[in-house]
């Protein structure tokens, strides 16, 4: 399993694609926001937590269609399926690799982009914590979506259509926690609920994703 | 026609929109059903004749 994780990470690094691209996309979304709603500092401060969450979510979505498609095309997925490693484990590792290459950088860079959007000082802690808790769920749900659409040519758009509704609970609790933090309110409840959703997703989604992948590999 | 008062537009447009949607799905289902049934009978006849 560790070998698979390392291999995926190395591939992502060497290709350079997912790593930088997601971050650049996140940056551009955040830069475009003031152009679309105006540069008033108070307004930006109010919408900053939501914009940062939405940007992170979209940046995460952007790289999902490559999550399994590369290994599907070159046949590596068939090899992995016949290996002693359970397919559930393979999918989970793929999601972890996706999170390390996409989610984690987004979490780290979010405070910097928060400065651009005039995020109140009190909001940085909750923003980073909520993103750190929520993005693993985004990657895991995304892995399920990628497994669903892996056999479909040009499945990218369909993937978004399938995955985005599944992101709703995570987005609601994550953005709510970040918003409450920015307004100086108590953030415990949404963070706990967010952690609960992420925990459940990480525990159960690999089984659904593996089941779907078995159908597609048939 | 009952007196709908000042909300006549709202009530009538709600009924119109709903009926259009309902009739639409029924018509679409029937149309596709007919076509598929005809096609199947066509193919069945052909396969009986040939084999």
């Amino acid at each position, binding site marked *: 399993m560790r070998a698979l994780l390392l291999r995926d990470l190395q591939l992502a690094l060497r290709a350079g694609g997912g790593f930088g691209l997601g971050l650049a996309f996140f940056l551009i979304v955040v830069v475009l926001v003031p152009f679309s709603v105006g540069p008033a500092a108070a307004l930006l401060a109010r919408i900053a937590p939501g914009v940062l969450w939405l940007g992170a979510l979209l940046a995460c979505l952007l790289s999902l269609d490559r999550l399994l498609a590369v290994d599907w095309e070159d046949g590596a997925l068939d090899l992995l399926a016949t290996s002693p490693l359970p397919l559930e484990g393979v999918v989970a590792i793929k999601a972890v690799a996706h999170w390390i290459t996409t989610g984690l950088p987004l979490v780290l860079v979010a405070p910097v982009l928060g400065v651009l959007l005039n995020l109140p000082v009190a909001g940085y802690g909750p923003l980073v914590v909520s993103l750190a808790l929520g993005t693993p769920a985004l990657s895991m749900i995304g892995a399920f979506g990628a497994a669903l659409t892996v056999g*479909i040519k040009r499945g990218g758009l369909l993937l978004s259509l399938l995955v985005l509704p*599944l992101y709703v609970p995570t987005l*609601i609790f994550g953005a709510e926690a970040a918003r409450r933090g920015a307004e100086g309110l108590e953030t415990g409840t949404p963070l706990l609920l967010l952690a609960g959703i992420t925990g459940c997703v990480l525990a159960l*989604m690999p089984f659904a994703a593996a089941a779907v992948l078995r159908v597609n590999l048939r | 026609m009952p007196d709908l*008062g000042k909300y006549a537009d709202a009530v009538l447009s709600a*009924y119109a929109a709903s009926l259009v949607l309902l009739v639409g799905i029924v018509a679409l289902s029937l149309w596709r059903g007919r076509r*598929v049934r005809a*096609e199947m009978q066509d193919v069945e006849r052909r396969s009986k004749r040939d084999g």
Partner: protein
Amino acid sequence: MSLWEYANPVKFLRLSERVLPWLWGGAAICLVVGLVWGFFFTPDDFRQGSTVKIIYLHVPSALMAINAWFMMLVASLIWIIRRHHVSALAARAAAPVGIVMTLIALVTGAIWGQPMWGTWWAWDPRLTSFLILFLFYLGYVALWEAIEDPDSAADLTAILCLVGTVFAVLSRYAVNFWNQGLHQGASLSLDKEENVADVFYFPLLVCIAGFVFLFLALVLYRTGTEIRVRRTRALIARETRTTDLHAEARDA
């Protein structure tokens, strides 16, 4: 004779031929009676004026929107556990009907909301949940359309339906947490205190019966259509195979 007999497509088709006229008839009678009764012969509400008449479309369609998804869930489970093709096809046939029901509920709700709440749309928990349900329906139908192999399409959409159900319920509670609502509580419940008044209640029940009949009729009919599509495709495949064989025999 058990219920599972009807998992056989031929038996299913024979049954649906026999039942369908009754269902269409029941739907037509109930809808006409209920809607005419509701539209022409019920008084206006004290506060809502004549907009109360929208309830005869809004409540039944909202009920059926949820029940359609529930039926798809049950059908998907039967497909996953017992592998009856009719079940998978019934789930597929129900989805577009569910989309239409959701649309009717949303549209009539918006038209009612404009004079009553002063807005077409509010990000109220019930409204938002329905919008999310609508998105789930769209994704489900899109996935069915996108996959060519019928058996894997059935498998994948069934799993999507299960996962989607969990997330739809989760979203329902998440949305509740996120915003307090304008929408009134249940119009119908076993607890009589909350219900709408009797004058509106009985025509509403007739309308609900009409929507249920209409839904059943549509699903049975559309399932029959899907079965015929499947059979036609199988026949055509066999035909091309035999012509290929003939051609090979001639060449040899």
